[in-house]
């Protein structure tokens, strides 16, 4: 047993710890602990008041037990009592206990705050520090409320001891982080800045941290710190080693303070004042010079400390981006580190150079290191170093080296870690597009990507290659030929089949002249992959087949036979079955002209920003919190969901919300799916629904924890009490990486969801129509068609809306007539509707007749938006 220091024996504690360590099993440990807990409990309850020493010893034992991992539910009172002792060792244990086992009992909080108040006012620096450390460690709102105004005063008072100032500065920093509204900085700003001139470098260190954080929120208030910081840094950097004895670490002068000052300066642009700017430049040059001097010590601590300052100085140079000379020197220094024998330095150099690559002053200088970086990609053994190399290649890529860099990245992709493949794929796709002079190279690159890392080629990437091929006549033939050849491989990735299917469907005619790629050969090639593919790919292939029928009448029979087969026409998947049936029918009844029109070549896609870039930003954002601003998809007013019940209703960079719903009479059930799109778990996930009184929405509880990449389901039970017009709102709250997210989404629950379609004969219809003839029962609307006026689409929408479509009721066959009943808990409302399209004018007239005015209004409103 190691000797315990004199002064505070606590032998009992040492013995207890020994006993625990000697326990042979977990059970023995638990037994010993319970024995001790019982002992302590009885001592605390005992009649004899415990002396300070004993209390301290027992509280310390409790703390030890807690730190082993066992729950402690008593001892707080005794710990708080220790705070009022005038012995340091007793106070210390008391403060330690309450900082580690934070308790939210308000009585205890009051007592603790009282003790802290006394210690802060005690003028005893040791006690003041204990109190300040406690506030800094706990940082609760109650403490902030009690002390936020005292601490600045202590910080700047002339008679405060240095060590207390250090603690006060950082204590203030903690309070500012947790309760910024309670920390009044205004009147103290100038004096806090002045601390940068303090004699005690520890005080300056703490003050610099404080100022840096405050300056990030209100830079203007702390502008004056810049000149003081530069002056200080200058003095440190040019000092002789005997000046800063206490703060020299392995022959490096005040390395941590230098780093902090350089950090502070990164909150501001380069100084406007010329002499200040030149003083800073001199400083930075000195730091760069020192890196070239022979080292004063062989110890790694010396070089790490020196390089810590160097890297921060380089970060400042990059941030300012204003002195070409410094930027180039920085680049050269980093270039030397690229080949250093220490992995840490190679890693940091690659990382730092990445930011340098984007500065126009140093971009060319960075490019000169391309061979070293490529070599790093091939030889580094730490995968995170290789990743930095990839990032750097991406950053330094431009027209002059794009082919080389893309080739290297593709070659690296073949053996890359699975966790980073998707990112590399995105980067290659972006570079290939950005720097393609000749688009055949682009097509080759993407096809290579699919071949090498097909699983990681996301939709955005292959959609993009198709968009580009469609939009560029000059590469269509090449694309067709290349995918055709690529598909010959015995095992090709499904994404290649998708791309190949689409391209051959559109441009197969460009290579059909060659007998080796005749239409029949092309079809057989695609069809040979058919049964190996998933449903979405097969659906795409079916579309390609109908396009072939249009392009190559000679294979029409062959393809029709395929479409006609049972495996297509009776396919279990609805989409495939529908396509097979419809395409087959289309091929049979459509004349060649109509077929050619329907299957005309795809028009060029409108030029818009690549979604690949957005996806990459989102991926990179997994290491930093991404921008919350853009909401990728939020259905406006849910018009999309009036006639359908399933789909995605909300999506942003973090979360996707989908739903599936079913309704029966006046009840509905909605399955809400929350998908975590990030690589960090969501915590404290909770929802609440706000809705009008006429609608009851009952939420089943949802999992408060959603793992990265996972999806959870929540059930909502819905009851329509009476007719309503407002859609309910789903409020979602969760914690992501420390920040609280709040999202509100409209839930697509509309009155028509509670429709029951009602079939009836035309006499019944007209009878009821007459019965609902009162003016308030009818609502009519004439409106312009927003979409194409297509009969089938309209029929589908009306059915989706919930009514039964009645044939042969309206003498005009172009008109639509429907009937249904809206079910609510209180009443049932019969509804009749008539939709009259006017194709020539591209307009509609919609008439709704129901027994309740509000229902007629609402249904008319909802339905008119659909066309």
């Amino acid at each position, binding site marked *: *047993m*190691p000797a*315990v*220091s004199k*002064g*505070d024996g606590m032998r009992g504690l040492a013995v207890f*710890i020994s006993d625990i360590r000697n326990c042979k099993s977990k059970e023995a440990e638990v037994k010993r602990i319970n024995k001790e807990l019982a002992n302590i409990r009885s001592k605390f309850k005992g009649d004899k008041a415990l002396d300070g020493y004993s209390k301290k010893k027992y509280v310390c034992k409790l*703390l*030890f037990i807690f*730190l082993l991992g066992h729950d402690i539910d008593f001892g707080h009172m005794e710990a708080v009592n220790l705070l009022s002792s005038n*012995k*340091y*060792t007793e106070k*210390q*244990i008391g403060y330690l206990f309450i900082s580690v086992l934070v308790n939210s009992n308000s009585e205890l909080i009051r007592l603790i705050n009282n003790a802290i108040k006394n210690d802060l006012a005690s003028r005893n620096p*040791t006690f003041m520090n204990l109190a300040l*450390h406690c506030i*800094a*460690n706990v940082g609760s709102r109650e403490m902030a409320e009690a002390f936020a105004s005292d601490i600045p005063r202590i910080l700047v008072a002339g008679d405060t001891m240095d*060590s207390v100032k*250090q603690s006060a500065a*950082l*204590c203030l*920093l*903690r309070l500012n*982080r947790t309760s910024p509204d309670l920390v009044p900085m205004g009147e103290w700003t100038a004096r806090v800045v002045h601390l940068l001139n303090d004699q005690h*470098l*520890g005080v300056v*260190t*703490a003050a610099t*941290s404080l100022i840096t954080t405050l300056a990030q929120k209100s830079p203007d208030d702390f502008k004056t710190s810049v000149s003081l910081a530069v002056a200080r840094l200058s003095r440190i950097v040019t000092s002789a080693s005997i000046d800063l*004895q*206490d*703060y020299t*670490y392995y022959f490096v002068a*005040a*390395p*941590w303070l230098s*780093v*902090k000052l350089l*950090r502070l300066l990164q909150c501001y642009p380069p100084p406007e004042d010329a002499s200040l700017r030149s003083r800073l430049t001199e400083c930075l040059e000195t730091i760069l010079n020192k890196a070239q001097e022979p080292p004063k010590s062989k110890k790694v*601590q010396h070089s*790490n*400390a020196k390089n*810590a300052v160097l*890297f*921060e100085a380089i970060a400042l140079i990059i941030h300012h981006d204003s002195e070409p000379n410094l930027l180039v020197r920085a680049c050269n220094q980093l270039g030397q580190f690229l080949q250093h024998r220490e*992995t*840490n330095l190679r890693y*940091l150099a690659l990382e730092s150079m990445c930011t340098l690559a984007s500065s126009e002053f140093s971009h060319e200088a960075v490019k000169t290191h391309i061979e070293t970086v490529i070599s790093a990609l091939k030889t580094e*053994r*730490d995968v*995170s*170093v290789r990743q930095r190399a990839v990032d750097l290649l991406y950053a330094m890529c431009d027209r002059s080296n794009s082919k080389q860099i893309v080739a290297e990245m593709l070659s690296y992709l073949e053996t890359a870690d699975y966790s980073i493949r998707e990112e590399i794929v995105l980067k290659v796709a972006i570079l290939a597009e950005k720097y393609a002079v000749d688009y055949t190279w682009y097509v080759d690159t993407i096809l290579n990507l699919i071949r090498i890392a097909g699983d990681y080629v996301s939709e955005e990437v292959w959609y993009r290659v198709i968009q580009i091929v469609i939009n560029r006549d000059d590469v269509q033939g090449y694309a067709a030929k290349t995918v055709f050849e690529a598909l010959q491989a015995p095992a090709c990735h499904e994404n290649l089949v998708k791309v190949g299917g689409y391209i051959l469907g559109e441009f197969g005619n460009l290579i059909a002249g060659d007998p080796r790629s005749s239409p029949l050969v092309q079809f057989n090639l695609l069809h040979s992959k058919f049964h190996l593919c998933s449903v979405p790919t097969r659906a795409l292939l079916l579309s390609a087949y109908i396009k072939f029928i249009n392009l190559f009448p000679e294979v029409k029979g062959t393809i029709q036979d395929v479409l006609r087969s049972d495996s297509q026409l009776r396919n279990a998947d609805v989409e495939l079955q529908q396509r097979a049936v419809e395409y087959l029918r289309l091929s049979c009844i459509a004349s060649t002209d109509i077929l050619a029109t329907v299957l005309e070549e795809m028009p060029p896609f409108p030029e818009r920003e690549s979604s690949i870039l957005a996806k990459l930003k989102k991926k990179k954002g997994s*290491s*930093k919190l991404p921008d919350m601003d853009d909401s990728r998809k939020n259905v406006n007013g849910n018009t999309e969901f009036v006639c359908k019940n399933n789909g995605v209703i909300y999506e942003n960079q973090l979360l996707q919300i989908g739903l599936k719903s079913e309704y029966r009479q006046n009840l509905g059930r909605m399955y809400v799916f929350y998908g975590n799109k990030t690589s*960090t778990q969501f*915590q404290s996930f909770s929802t609440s629904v706000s809705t009008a009184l006429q609608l009851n929405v009952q939420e089943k509880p949802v999992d408060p924890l959603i793992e990265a990449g996972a999806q959870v389901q929540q059930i909502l039970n819905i009851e329509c009490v009476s007719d309503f017009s407002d859609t309910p709102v789903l409020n979602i709250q969760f914690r992501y*990486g*420390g920040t609280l997210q709040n999202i509100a989404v409209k839930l697509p629950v509309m009155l028509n969801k509670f429709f029951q379609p009602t079939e009836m004969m035309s006499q019944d219809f007209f009878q009821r129509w007459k019965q609902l003839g009162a003016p308030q029962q009818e609502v009519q609307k004439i409106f312009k068609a927003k979409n194409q006026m297509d009969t089938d689409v309209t029929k589908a929408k009306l059915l989706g809306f919930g009514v039964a479509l009645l044939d042969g009721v309206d003498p005009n066959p172009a008109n639509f007539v429907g009937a249904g009943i809206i079910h609510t808990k209180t009443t049932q409302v019969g509804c009749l509707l008539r939709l009259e399209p006017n194709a020539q004018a591209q307009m509609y007239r919609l008439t709704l007749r129901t027994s309740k005015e509000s229902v007629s209004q609402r249904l008319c409103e909802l339905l008119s938006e659909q066309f």
Partner: protein
Amino acid sequence: MFIFLLSFPPGKTRLAKWYMQFDDDEKQKLIEEVHAVVTVRDAKHTNFVEFRNFKIIYRRYAGLYFCICVDVTDNNLAYLEAIHNFVEVLNEYFHNVCELDLVFNFYKVYTVVDEMFLAGEIRETSQTKVLKQLLMLQSLE
């Protein structure tokens, strides 16, 4: 800085300082994860590893891993040496510190930490000053 961790494989935590709010179960999970990430690495790796939204700067001394979780924009080498500075102080204070010292004097280790780090920032870097302060405190009743 968000977390300061001193751990010993197989997963015994000798010291954990938290500079950000976490629930007890979150803390436990984080400790396990940090431990898992750090103990699979060896000499060919760097002393830095990306972890969730942070990065971990760590160094191994005999059987003990000293880990600091910092913001991705923080200076890696500065924190690496801050760990070493802290270890040198412990060494001086406990006279050739060994793991048992840290176990039996756990409550004093917190004092050392608070002298050098506070509110997630570096508080004092001069070994001379820190040791002077610690010795003074030691002499108090």
